[in-house]
């Protein structure tokens, strides 16, 4: 019963990312896209990375991060849109946090 979480908002501006993290399950995956890419530098990301040492996969859409000149972290997978499409079907459902 894994969920794919599409995070589209900056945690520096809204609390959508915090809400996402509060319901995140161990088998889930997170994709940072659009302004969600800014969250790579947010304090909430540290706690997520520590948790994710278990099983949660954290991804960022390369072009979305690059467009915003955001350096990314080693713990984060760089993916493209076709990976997002694939993740849509390897997880049981999708929640968009926007």
């Amino acid at each position, binding site marked *: *019963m894994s*969920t794919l979480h599409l995070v589209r908002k900056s945690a520096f501006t809204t*609390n*959508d990312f915090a*809400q996402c993290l*509060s*319901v*995140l*399950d161990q088998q889930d995956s997170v994709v940072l896209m659009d302004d969600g890419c800014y969250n790579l530098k947010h304090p909430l990301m540290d706690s997520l990375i520590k948790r994710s040492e278990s099983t949660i996969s954290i991804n960022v859409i390369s072009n979305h991060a690059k467009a915003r000149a955001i350096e990314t972290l080693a713990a984060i997978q760089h993916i493209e849109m076709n990976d997002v499409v694939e993740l849509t079907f390897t997880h*049981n*459902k*999708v*929640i*968009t*946090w*926007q």
Partner: protein
Amino acid sequence: MVSSDTQVENNLSQESGLAIINSKAPFSSDFGKDALDVALIFGSFEQKVSLFFQGDGVYQLIGHQDGTLVSIKDYLKTFSAFEFYDIEDIYVCQQSLVNRQLDESFHIDNVNVLASLEFGLAINRHQHVLRF
């Protein structure tokens, strides 16, 4: 061969219906009303739909509100029609209530107050999720 026990478990874990997460306060945007319209149409088509209230969305459930004071048609009153539409699963995030210093007193009955973990698990029991 699947034992009947496992079958029962599979049935229990079967994800079905639509979960709608409400994340916006009631009187500053149409999001709550738009979510309600989706919920009622699912109900009228006899499709399973559950409502989740998180973040500022929890303000949609609080008692003693009165949108007419700010010239807004109070769509919250329509929440009392949920039973008629067989919308019975209504969940609110306890942490969101606590953060906002809100009591667990709501303008409709049968609201389930859940801790974050259970709130997430309840969402997971649905096949699809929309968030407004």
